[in-house]
C-alpha cells in the first residue's frame, strides 16, 4: 500500500514545481482517488488534481503519480455537465494547497444536492465495452481485459449513482455494489482486476454488462414514464 510518506513526498515534488514556476499562489492542489480515501492498494496511483486560472505547463512526476490538470472554467463546466470526477473531488478531495481560497468558495457555491449523471457513465461503459470487443476480436486479450475493466467500473458508478449512492474510490466499488445487493457485478469487478482472465470469462462479462446496461436503461424509462404520469 502507498504509504503516507510516499504520497506526501510525491505531492511535495508537484508543489515544489508549481512554486518554482510561480504558479502555486493561484493553483488549488487536491489529493484525489483511493489515496485520498485511504483505500489504496499496492497498484494504486497517487492521483493529484491541479486547478488553476489558466492552463498549467506540464508537471514532471514520478511514474506512480498521476496529475490531472484543469482550468477553473473547465472544472466548473465539467461539474455542471454531470461529470462525476469534479463531483468526487468536491466531496472527497483532500486540499493540499489553496492559497487563493478558490476551492473554499467553489465548495460554498456548489449546490449540496448536485448529482452526477448516471446516464453519462452508462454511455462511457458502452463505449469502452465496444472497444474491448474490438480488441477481443483481434485476440489482444490482455488489453481487452483492461477495456472491459474500465467498462465495468463505469457501469458500477452509473448503477450506484442511479441508486443515489455516491461511488467512492476504485478499490471500494465492489464493496459498495455488494451493499446494494449487486453481487454479480461486484464479482465481475473483482475478477477483472486479477492478473489474467480467460477469454471465455471476458466474453461472459461482456454479455452480462450489456444485459445490465439495458436493464438499467429500461428501468430508467419506466421510472421516467411513471414520473410524467404523476406530474
Amino acid at each position: 500500500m502507498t504509504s503516507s510518506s510516499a504520497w506526501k513526498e510525491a505531492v511535495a515534488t508537484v508543489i515544489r514545481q508549481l512554486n518554482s514556476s510561480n504558479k502555486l499562489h493561484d493553483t488549488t492542489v487536491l489529493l484525489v482517488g483511493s489515496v485520498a480515501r485511504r483505500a489504496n492498494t499496492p497498484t494504486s496511483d497517487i492521483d493529484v488534481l491541479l486547478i488553476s486560472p489558466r492552463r498549467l505547463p506540464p508537471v514532471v512526476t514520478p511514474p506512480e503519480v498521476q496529475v490531472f490538470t484543469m482550468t477553473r472554467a473547465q472544472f466548473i463546466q465539467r461539474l455542471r455537465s454531470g461529470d462525476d470526477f469534479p463531483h468526487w473531488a468536491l466531496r472527497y478531495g483532500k486540499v493540499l494547497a489553496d492559497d487563493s481560497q478558490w476551492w473554499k468558495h467553489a465548495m460554498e457555491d456548489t449546490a449540496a444536492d448536485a448529482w452526477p449523471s448516471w446516464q453519462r457513465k452508462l454511455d462511457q461503459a458502452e463505449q469502452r465495452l465496444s472497444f474491448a470487443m474490438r480488441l477481443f476480436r483481434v485476440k489482444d486479450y490482455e488489453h481487452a481485459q483492461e477495456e472491459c475493466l474500465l467498462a465495468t467500473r463505469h457501469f458500477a458508478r452509473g448503477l450506484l449513482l442511479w441508486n443515489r449512492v455516491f461511488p467512492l474510490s476504485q478499490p471500494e466499488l465492489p464493496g459498495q455494489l455488494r451493499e446494494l445487493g449487486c453481487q454479480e457485478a461486484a464479482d465481475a469487478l473483482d475478477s477483472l482486476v486479477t492478473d489474467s482472465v480467460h477469454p471465455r470469462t471476458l466474453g461472459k462479462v461482456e454479455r452480462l454488462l450489456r444485459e445490465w446496461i439495458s436493464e438499467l436503461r429500461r428501468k430508467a424509462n419506466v421510472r421516467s414514464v411513471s414520473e410524467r404520469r404523476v406530474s
Partner: protein
Amino acid sequence: MSLKGARSKLELDRNQLQRVHDAVEMEDPEEAVTWAFYAYENAVVAAAEREQLPWKKTHISKQDVAEKLHRRSVLSRDISDTLHDLNELRKDVAYGETGADLEALDLEDLEAELEHFIDEVAAFVEGRGR
C-alpha cells in the same frame, strides 16, 4: 514464450497499426491514440520476450522495460515517455476527459513513429536488428 510470444505480439501490432492508420484517415484522434498505445505496449512486450527480459502486465512495468531495452541497445529510442504520455491520453479518452493535449497531437506523426518503431522491433525479433 520467447520467440513464439514475440511473434504473436508482433502480429497483433500489425493489425493494430492498421487500426491506427484507419483512425488517422478518419481524423479520429480518440481511436488513433487508444490503438497506438496498445500497439506500442505490444511491441515493447515483443522485444522484451525476444530479449528474455521479464515484464509484468502493468503500464509502469512496460515503461520500465522500454527504458531497459534502450539501455541494452536493443532499441534505438527510449519510448518510456511516449508510453507514459499516450497512456495519459488514452485514459482521458476512456473517462471522456479529452482536451488540448489530444487536439495538439499530430496524428500523422503518431502513425509514422509507431510504424517505424514496430519495424525496428520486428527486425530485432527476426534477428535482423542491431
